[in-house]
């Protein structure tokens, strides 16, 4: 990988091979190969409808997606046979393109339930509301929030930008090993985009990997990826360094889509 030769021998955190996935009877992913090593940031770009969210959702274990063929290994273990909650407890996190409302459950109660589920898995004691508030306080600062958003029901009445920040807050609190961000940049104004990017950059580290799904290159101006992949028509048609994102910005996707059709 360009500029990251030292990591070439690093441990693969996620290894996807020949992944074919259908939803509602339509094959969307038609053989995806992808390897992400510890500490790497990969970006997946591609036109609308190319299957980016499908890949993200299937890695998180959404039951609506049917795996037709292929495998996904996470920390060397088969990811696709794990329940969504088992994946989360093992350190996989998906920031949703469309975060979901949960009526009647406050954001803080939700987040504490999630964190405690992870802590139980790790054999750590659960946090009571007071201890949790302390954990939360620092994380809130990172995304520029006070705790007023925490007493509202999860995502209910949140603006698009607030929902996206809320995903990043969850990411910061749950501290996953593999964070998948699905279009976290869409619908954000430039300030919010910078806040989100800053929060993600702070979370970058040798043990944590990112898969950043985006339609545009602008988020990648703030988060420099190690590898950029282009997904078109259910396949990764090109991979390269950060410069590939700029190339896509200049040329659009059509030349790649045509390439995918031909192959």
């Amino acid at each position, binding site marked *: 990988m360009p500029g990251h030769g030292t990591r070439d021998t690093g441990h693969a955190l996620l290894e996807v091979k020949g992944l074919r996935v259908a939803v509602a009877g339509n094959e969307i992913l038609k053989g995806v190969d992808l390897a992400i090593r510890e500490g790497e940031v990969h970006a997946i770009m591609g036109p609308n409808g190319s299957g980016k969210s499908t890949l993200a959702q299937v890695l*998180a*274990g*959404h*039951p609506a997606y049917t795996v037709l063929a292929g495998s996904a290994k996470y920390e060397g273990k088969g990811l696709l046979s794990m*329940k*969504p*909650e088992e*994946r*989360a*407890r093992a350190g996989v*996190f*998906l920031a*949703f393109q469309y*975060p*979901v*409302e*949960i*009526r*009647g*459950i406050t954001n803080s109660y*939700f987040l504490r*339930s*999630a964190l405690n*589920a*992870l802590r139980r*898995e790790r054999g750590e004691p659960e946090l009571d509301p007071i201890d949790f508030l302390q954990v939360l306080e620092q994380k809130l600062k990172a995304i520029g929030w006070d705790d007023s958003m925490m007493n509202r*029901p999860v995502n209910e009445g949140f603006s698009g930008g607030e929902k996206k920040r809320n995903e990043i807050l*969850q990411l910061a609190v*749950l501290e996953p090993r593999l964070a998948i961000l699905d279009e976290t940049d869409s619908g954000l104004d430039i300030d919010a985009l910078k806040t989100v990017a800053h929060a993600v950059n702070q979370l970058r580290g040798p043990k944590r990997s990112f898969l950043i799904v985006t339609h545009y290159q602008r988020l990648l101006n703030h988060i420099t990826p190690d590898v950029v992949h282009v997904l078109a028509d259910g396949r990764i048609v090109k991979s390269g360094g950060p410069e590939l994102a700029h190339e896509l910005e200049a040329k659009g996707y059509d030349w790649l889509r045509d390439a995918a059709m031909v192959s």
Partner: protein
Amino acid sequence: MAHVEQLVGSYRAWAANGASGAPSWLKDLREGGIARFHDLGFPNMKQEAWRFTSVAPIAEGSFELAQPPARTPKLDDIRPFLLFETGYRLVFLDGFFQPSLSTPFFDDIQSLAHVVAHRQDLVRQHLGTYAATQDRPFSALNTAFVHEGAFVHVPAKATIAEPIQLLFLASGAKQVVSHPRNLVVIEREARASIVETYASLGQGPYWTNSVTEVVVGEGARVDYHRVQRESERAYHVATTQTHQGRDSTVHLHTVAFGAALARHDIGAVMAGPGGTLILNGLYLLAGQQHADHHTTIDHAADHCESHEYFNGVLDEKSRGVFTGRIIVRPGAQKTDSKQTNNNLLLSTDAHADSQPQLEIYADDVKCTHGSTVGPLDPRALFYLRSRGVGEAEARRLMTYGFAAEILGRMDVAALRAELDRIVRDRLAA
């Protein structure tokens, strides 16, 4: 029909003996009630207001008029149903006032039977003025047996800081009927919070037929909470009728957990301009329980605001019925009315009927309504699981959230905590 005759017979016997000492206006009120009930008989499912609810178990059952209980419960017996041991409270057993368990306040927070003698003018002015009986057989029947219940009077500009507890217990030992009749008068600019609870010490079948009238004066505010946690074999029929003056505020919260068959008619008349009403209800049912809430918000004056939220959580073979009628009278301009009814079906055998009925006769108004019936949102379920919460816990959490949404609107922290505990217990079972 036999049972109607039986009830009329028991009324005659009661009126001739136990109730013969009443003032003549009260006797007239009762006579009017029994005559009306005799005319109407029990409702049947051909009637629009009773389309989804059969009262056959009541109409065909045999319920004797409750007698004064042989023994007074101890404070320990009723403690599980009390939110506070301080403050004012009125406790009734099978409809009979229990002075040794109650903490009344002169003639302002008292048993109705007592104040009928001592504050005749006030009682006479209000009693039976708000709760309709024309097409309401149960309300008419209650009016026939008007005798005992809670009386709360808050004088103008007074504030009662601690919530007043009205506790109606059934001994649950015999198949009896009681007709509690409550009158709450909040004078102008006064303020009070009330918790009315129906519960049972025993498990047997019995029938409660209650009527509560709440009058709220100009600029006054009442937070009224009603908790129905009767025995699971009980029949519970109730009317709550509020009447609001200018610039007054009513927050009416109602929670139904109990009874085999429950029907609650809630009526709210916004009689003066500038009134605010929050009608906030929850029903949480399982087994074969059936609960029917019939609400009518009557915007009779302009510039009033009403917000109605009802959530139902229905498990096993239970059934929830919600009818939300909103009337905006001619001239009730600038009415702002919002209604939602959401039903969560936790089993494929559970059932919910939800029907909004909007009758709008003014043009410059804002009225919205929405209702949902369905299982837990699979997207939210996946969202929770993707955060590490196990499937069973995620379902419990979401179900709890459905209830918590309603409980969260209540201002009395002790009540919220107690209801929260009941909901969690039920969901854990």
